[in-house]
Structures are given as C-alpha cells and as structure tokens.
C-alpha cells in the first residue's frame, strides 16, 4: 500500500485545487472556506498519523517517478508537523481572518498549496524535484505575504521576498547543474555513492555545486549573509502568515538540508565545515544584535528567528562527528521552535486582531493587569524561546549544545550560550514590560471568546509538557519525541544498510 505513505500530501494537493476552483464562485463566506481548509488539513493529518513512529524508507513508485520521491520516517514526521502548522495557523488565526476583510478564498487555497509544496520538499529525493516543490511553497508564500493589496508595505515585502528568493533560487539550479556535470545524476543517494567512491579524484564541481545548493537553503532559513529580507518580510506579512512562515518553512528546509547532508555530502562535509562554522557564528551574532535593537515585538521575533536558525546550524556544523545526535537535535529543536513560534505569533495576532494595534514594547505596558491570562501564556512562549528549564526550548538547547560539545565544537557551544544569555534580555524585556508597569494604556476587558485562545493555551501546555513530560506518567513525553527524531534519522540511512 504505497499510497498510504504519500496520502497526506495527495489530500493536500486535492484540497488546494478544489479550494482554488471554489474560490471562483461568489457568495461563499470566509467561514465556509475555513471549514473546508480545516477539513482537508484534518484528513491529511490523520492520514499522516498512520505512519508515525514506524521505521521505514520506500522509494515511491520507482517505475513512474524514477526514485525522485521517497517516503520515510523523517518525511512522515515532518509532514505531520507541517500539517499541524497549518491547523494551528487556521485555529489561531480564525479570529484574525474574520476581522480582516481582505482575506478571501484564494488565501486558503494558497495555504494548502504552501503546505503541499513543503511536504513535497521533505519527500523529494532529487534536486530538481526539490526545487520545484520549494518554488511551489515559496510562490504561495510570496502571495500570502502581500495579500493585503491595500497596504503598500505588504506589497513591498512580498516583492522584496520574491525577487531575492528567485535570485537565490537560480543559484540552486546552477548548483544542481554542476553536481550533474560531475556525477551524472541529480538523485540524492546516487550523488552520495558517487562522491564516496571517487574520494581520491577531483570533486571540485560537486563541491561548488553543493555550496550553491546550500546557498538557497541559507537564504530560506535566513542565515547570515542572506538574512536581510527577514525583518521586512515578517513585518510586512499579516501576522498569522508570519507565524506560519516562521514555524513551518524552517521545518521543510532543514528537513531537506538534513537529507542532503546526511545522505550525500557527508563524505565531503569537512570541506564545508569552515563555511558552516562561520555562517553559524555570524548568523548568531548578527541575529542577536538585530533582535536586541528592535522596538517592535514582531520585528524582534523575526530577528530572533535568525538566532534560532543559528542554533540549529550549530548542530549541523557538528553533523560529521556526531551524526545521530546532531540530526536528532535539529529535528527536536525544529519541533520546539515550531511550537514557540506558532504560539507567540499566534498570540500576537490574536491580540492585535480586535484591539488597537499593539506593536512596540511600550504598547505592552500594563498588559498583565488588563489581560492576565494572555500575559501568562505569552510568558511561557518567551521562556521557551529563551530556553528556560521546564520548557521544550530548554531541552532543545540541551541537545544542540551537547551535540556541539560532543563534536568538540566548544567555540560554537560557547557562542550559543552567549546568544542565549543575550536572548534573555530581549525576551524578558517583554515580560518585564507586561508585568512591571502600571499603565493600562489600552485598558479593555479581556475578550477570551472563541477557539483561538484555547488553542494558544494548548500550544503553551504542549511546550511545557515537551520540557517536563516523562513516560512514567503514561503519556508520551520527552522521550517519545526523542525517539521520533531518532527513528527519523535511522530511516535516512536505511536504504544504505
């Protein structure tokens, strides 16, 4: 039953197309579209739950696709995360969508297409396929970013994102070409076999090509020096979209990067080590600097997402020495960051959806007095992002740093710790502003109706559970998540055993 492995993605594709068709019909309310989208996402999620935790790796329909698609534990786990990203975005953003008149049916179709593209990316086993999937996802996100046509800033953000993205994308194609010129294949795995069997020969074309491919990855995860778009795009995008982007796109890209490195470029990774090393350091330093100087919460979260990319790059820099640990720590951290980002952006969007806009730190003065519940939940997200023990963000950092130490990358671990320390400043500043000032400038009684606040609170509970949970209490806890990450790693190497 091979179809079971790809079923979630198929459902997403069908959902996207049918919503696209529906959006041509007038007189359908936003709510209806939202229910349709939720239906498809829920179906897709339950389909992907079927394979969760199993260890497997199959090439999908090799006779038709010629090994271009793969389905393994890694892809199924990440697809589940991507779909839940979509579900959370829908649930959390419900409030926001209902109060903005510019959201229309196409938006939801695009959301499904974006998830579809990202899921294809984690399933793809070939460079050109990966590029196409990536572009499907990116194009949807470009449009979603600029969805409010009335707002010039949105248009600017979308345009900036698209032009730079397309430019970085061309490097990917060049890289794929160079790799093909050297090894005669663009199928992942085969490249790796070629590289490891020609280690003594001249591999400069493949190395250069690999670097060009990695460049697009760096661009998409906003690593230094390709981070310049991040702040403007995040600021320009509608809040639920920004949250969706921050939470899910990293998962897909890092999933692809892990597959590329672990399966193919592991043998020549020592050549890249220096590159990754410096990119990591600069990403963290520059990201921390950016986050520290921001006045707007949204921009601070965007800048701090650069730092979180940096944390994950720490583990990837250690991937050759401690493959299992580095890979699992990246996967674990992706989940932790996913939840924190979805939660914090979601809560921001909820807050801004029916009040006057709260944008800067100062706007949050006295927030805890008027909205104690939301302030507490926001604090949980900040704790997790800052990596305070008791939250999932802490366990994530625990893995990242211990894998760096195990690989003897002490400098990276130290820089990571310093960045954590700086991050305390900009995350705790928000908590301090919320709790320690008495200026309820926008005093308005808390409106906690509807589904959104409950979902946000649920995300916060998940984060706490991911930091404290233990299997002794009969609910899958931290160990369960670690095992999932471990299985995902094992499945990457399964075809080569």
């Amino acid at each position, binding site marked *: 039953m091979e179809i079971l492995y790809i079923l979630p993605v198929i459902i997403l594709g069908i959902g996207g197309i049918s919503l696209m068709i529906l959006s041509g019909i007038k007189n359908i309310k936003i709510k209806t579209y939202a229910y349709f989208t939720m239906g498809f996402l829920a179906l897709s999620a339950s389909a992907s739950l079927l394979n969760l935790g199993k260890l497997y790796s199959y090439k999908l329909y090799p006779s038709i696709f010629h090994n271009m698609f793969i389905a393994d534990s890694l892809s199924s786990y990440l697809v589940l995360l991507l779909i839940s990203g979509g579900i959370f975005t829908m649930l959390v953003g419900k409030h926001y969508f209902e109060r903005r008149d510019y959201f229309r049916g196409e938006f939801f179709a695009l959301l499904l297409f974006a998830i579809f593209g990202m899921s294809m990316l984690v399933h793809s086993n070939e460079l050109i396929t990966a590029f196409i999937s990536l572009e499907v996802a990116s194009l949807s996100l470009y449009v979603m970013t600029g969805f409010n046509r009335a707002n010039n800033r949105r248009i600017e953000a979308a345009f900036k994102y698209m032009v730079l993205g397309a430019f970085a994308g061309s490097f990917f194609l060049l890289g794929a070409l160079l790799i093909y010129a050297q090894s005669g294949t663009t199928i992942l795995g085969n490249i790796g076999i070629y590289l490891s069997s020609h280690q003594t020969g001249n591999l400069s074309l493949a190395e250069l090509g690999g670097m060009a491919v990695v460049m697009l990855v760096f661009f998409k995860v906003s690593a230094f020096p390709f981070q310049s778009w991040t702040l403007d795009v995040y600021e320009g995008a509608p809040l639920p979209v920004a949250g969706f982007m921050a939470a899910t796109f990293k998962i897909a890209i890092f999933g692809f990067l892990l597959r590329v490195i672990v399966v193919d470029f592991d043998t020549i990774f020592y050549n890249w080590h220096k590159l990754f090393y410096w990119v990591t350091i600069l990403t963290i330093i520059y990201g921390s600097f950016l986050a520290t100087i921001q006045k707007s919460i949204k921009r601070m979260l965007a800048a701090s997402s650069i730092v979180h990319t940096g944390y994950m790059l720490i583990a990837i820099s250690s991937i050759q020495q401690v493959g299992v640990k580095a890979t699992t720590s990246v996967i674990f951290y992706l989940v932790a960051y996913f939840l924190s980002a979805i939660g914090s952006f979601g809560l921001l969007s909820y807050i801004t959806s029916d009040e006057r806009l709260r944008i800067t730190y100062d706007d949050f003065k006295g927030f805890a007095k008027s909205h104690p519940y939301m302030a507490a939940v926001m604090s949980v997200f900040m*704790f997790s992002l800052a990596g*305070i*023990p*008791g939250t999932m963000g802490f*366990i994530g950092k*625990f893995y990242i*740093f*211990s894998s760096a*130490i*195990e690989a003897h990358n002490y400098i990276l*671990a*130290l820089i990571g*710790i310093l960045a*954590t*320390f700086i991050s*305390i*400043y900009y995350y*705790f*500043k928000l*908590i*301090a502003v919320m*709790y*320690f*000032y008495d200026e309820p400038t926008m005093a308005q009684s808390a409106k906690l109706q509807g589904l959104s606040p409950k979902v946000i609170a649920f995300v916060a509970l998940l984060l706490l559970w991911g930091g404290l949970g*233990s*299997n*002794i209490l009969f609910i899958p*806890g*931290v*160990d369960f998540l*670690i*095992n999932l990450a*471990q299985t995902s790693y094992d499945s990457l190497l399964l075809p080569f055993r």
Partner: protein
Amino acid sequence: MDSGILTYIIFTPMVMAFVLMISKADAKMTRNIAFLTGIVIFALSMKVFLDFQPVSYMQFIEYHPWIESYGISYYVGIDGFSLVILVLIAVLVPSGYLLLWEGRTKGYWISMLLIESGMLGALLSLDLMLFYFFWETMVLPVFLIIGMFGHAEKVFSTLKFTIYTISGSLFMFLAILYLGIAFHNEFDAWSFQLIDLAKITILSPTEKFWLFWAFMIAFMVKIPLFPLHGWLLETYKNAPTGGVFLLSSFMAKLGIYGVIRFVMPLFPSLYKEYSHIFVWLGLFGLIYFGIAALMQDNIKKMFAYSSASHLGFITVGIFMLNEYAFLGALFLIIAHAMATGGLFLLVGKIYYNLRTFSISRLGGLAKRAPLLALFFAVFLFSIVGLPGTNGFVAEFMIILGSFKRSIGIGIVSATTVLVAASFMLWMFQRALLQDTKNDVSKMVDLDAKEVLGLLPIAAIIIIMGVYPDLFTTKIEPTIYYYLHDILKVGM
C-alpha cells in the same frame, strides 16, 4: 526507603501555587493558604529531621527516570548538610510569612510559594540536570517579585539580577553537559547523577580547570563573592521585603551549598588546590563589604553589604579544609540566615510604618517600639557574634579553624571579624538608641502574631548559642565524610 516524603516537601508549595493561580481566591485567602503550606512543609521537615539517622550517606532517596534517553532522572535525597538547610527553610519561611502578613497581593504569595519549591528542589536534587532545572526556575519568581512589588528602579534591578544570575548559571549548564558527555565517553551510558559524574577519570587537568571555574562562577554570583557582586546592591535596595528575606536567608546559602554539594565531590583536588584563593577572596570580601556597609545611610543597603560580608566569612570557613572551620561555616549559615532574615523582616516592618530606610531618621525607635528593638538587638548580636548567640559559636569555630591552618590567616580573620562586628553595634546605637527629635510616632510595635513569628528564630539563636551540641550530632558524620573521604584531608 522510598517514602516519597521529599517529593511532598518539594512539590506541595508548587502545586498549591498552581491551584491558587487558577482559583478565584483573593489575596487574604491566598496568604492564609500559603502560610498553611509553610506549616505543612515545616511539619514534614520535622518528621524528616527526627527520622534522620546520624550517618554520612544519603537518606530518604527517591529515584525515578525522567528523560531516559539521556539518563536524566528525578533523583532526590538528603544528608546531614542538606538537612540543616531544609530545617532552616522550614522554620524560617512560615515565620517570615507572619511578618509579611499585611498589604500584599495574590501574585506576591504565589511567587513566594514558587520560590520555596524551587529552593527546596535545588536543595534536595542529586541529579545535576534536575538541580539545574530547579536552580533556574527559582530565579523566575524572584524576577517577578522584584519587578512587580519592588521599589524605585525595580525594572532595571530585576533585569540586572536576572541577567547576572542566569549568565552565571549558563556556564554551569555547559559544564554539566560537558561532564555528562565525558561520562558517556568513558562508561558508554548516559547519566547526570552526581555520584556517577564524580567517577569520571578521563578529564585532563585543563578540562577540569575550566569546568571547576564554570561551576564556581555560577555559585559565586549567587553567594555573591567578590568580584561578582554587581547585582547585589540594587537588588537588595529595590526588592520588596519578602524578596530580600528569601535572597539573603536562603538563596545566598544555596550558593554555598552548591559549592559543597557539587564542586567538592566533582573536583576534590582542585577544591584543595584553589582553596587559598577563596580563603583570601572571602577575607577580602569580609573587609570590603564591611567597610562598604559602614558608609551606608540606607539601612537595607547596609544589611545587604553586611550580609555579603558574612557570606565571605562562610566561604572562608568552607575552604579552610578542617573540621572546626567547616562546622563553623555550617553553623554560620544557620546563624546568619536566621539573624539576617529576621533583620530584613524587621526593616520591612519599619518601612511599612515609617516609609523610610534612612538610618538617621530612625533614632529613638526603641522607646516607641520596645519589642521590635528587643528582637532587633537579639538578631544583631547574633550577627555581631556576641557570646550567648549562635553567631558567636560559629565565628569562634571558624577562627579556631583558621588558626589551625596557619597563624597568619587566623590573625587576619580574627581581626577582620572584630572590625566587621564593630560597625553593626554602631549602627544599632545610631538607629535605635539615640534620642533624637525624629518623628517616629507612626511606628507601631510588633503585634502578637509577629512576635509569634520571631520568637522561634530568636529562641533558636540563643539555644544554639548556649547548647550547640544539640545540632552538631546530626551533621558531624556528614562533615567527617566530606573532609575525610571526599577531600582526603587529615582530620
């Protein structure tokens, strides 16, 4: 011996805090429940104290795997040393609550409960990751309590405090990870338990050097030991009474506790090698903070410095490497926590009535509030180390230990203690006994409830001063074990 009593002790305040958080109880109700929780913890701790066998090994051990993939476990236990601090917390916390009775909000009491849980957890953990977890979570409610209920530049001081302490402990976090990985490399299994990590043999001297200092920095910030005391002044000055009470009486002591519990068994040779550095740092701190305290007019600042000065002396005691000094340091931990805690509570009471911290405006207080002055005097005498109080026994033993190590150090510590003692008496005379024209008519003397809270503290100060053996029997085996079996110094 899996009775689970330590788990109850650690988590009762936390669970109560969460229950109160979601319940609709008002501030008064919250306070009453917080006080009752304190009493329950006191009762449970007394049971532990009575059942505790005077032997050197860990008792009341509880072990549950937590994150099995990396050998992180919920592993708690108690020995003579942690017993001392447990009893200290159990006695002082409810007493403190009685003095903090008035005019507080719900968030204040919930934070106090959370801090209590954090402290007890850090005190009883035997797994380093578990310890780190409590150690960090303990800071968060302190952050809230200073920021929400503090005075003056409270936001600045709370951020400074948090950044100082968390940055210190982040280095410790790296060191813990490093030790865990070293254990994994040597034994091919994951564990973060103290007894396991102490078995590691593959570390090179350079590695040990860095790890040792990473741990020490975290604890030195908390104590605070010169030169890492940057957060001290503003935090103490701007924190609310309850926050200062907890910081000075317990958290600083937990810094000392961390040194003995973790640094000593993990790096015994370095502990001995660098002991002279810490002895001198401690003595220097004793004088430096003593002089700084002399110059203050703000009574809270003055006690902040005098407290740091005494913690310097405790550090001297634990690094002196002999039984007298060590026992003296433990005694001083109790003596100082009781006395300084009591003093800060009284200062809070004075501020509540008179709205001032200035010493020069307090003259003649003794006439107006004789009971308050009496307790003030008892606590102060204990800090100064007057015979008949436990402060005397403690300081005497440390000085005795210093002489045992070398005559020079002995003379230096004896004189510095005397100098440091003098300023306290001077302050007492200025603040309470002077007959000035200050308007202290708003001062209300202690009521029955407050006397009830302070009486046990004062009683213990005097009983310990007159009959110290009552307390030493339970802890002596532990001290012997630490010095003889872990540090391997001759007794």
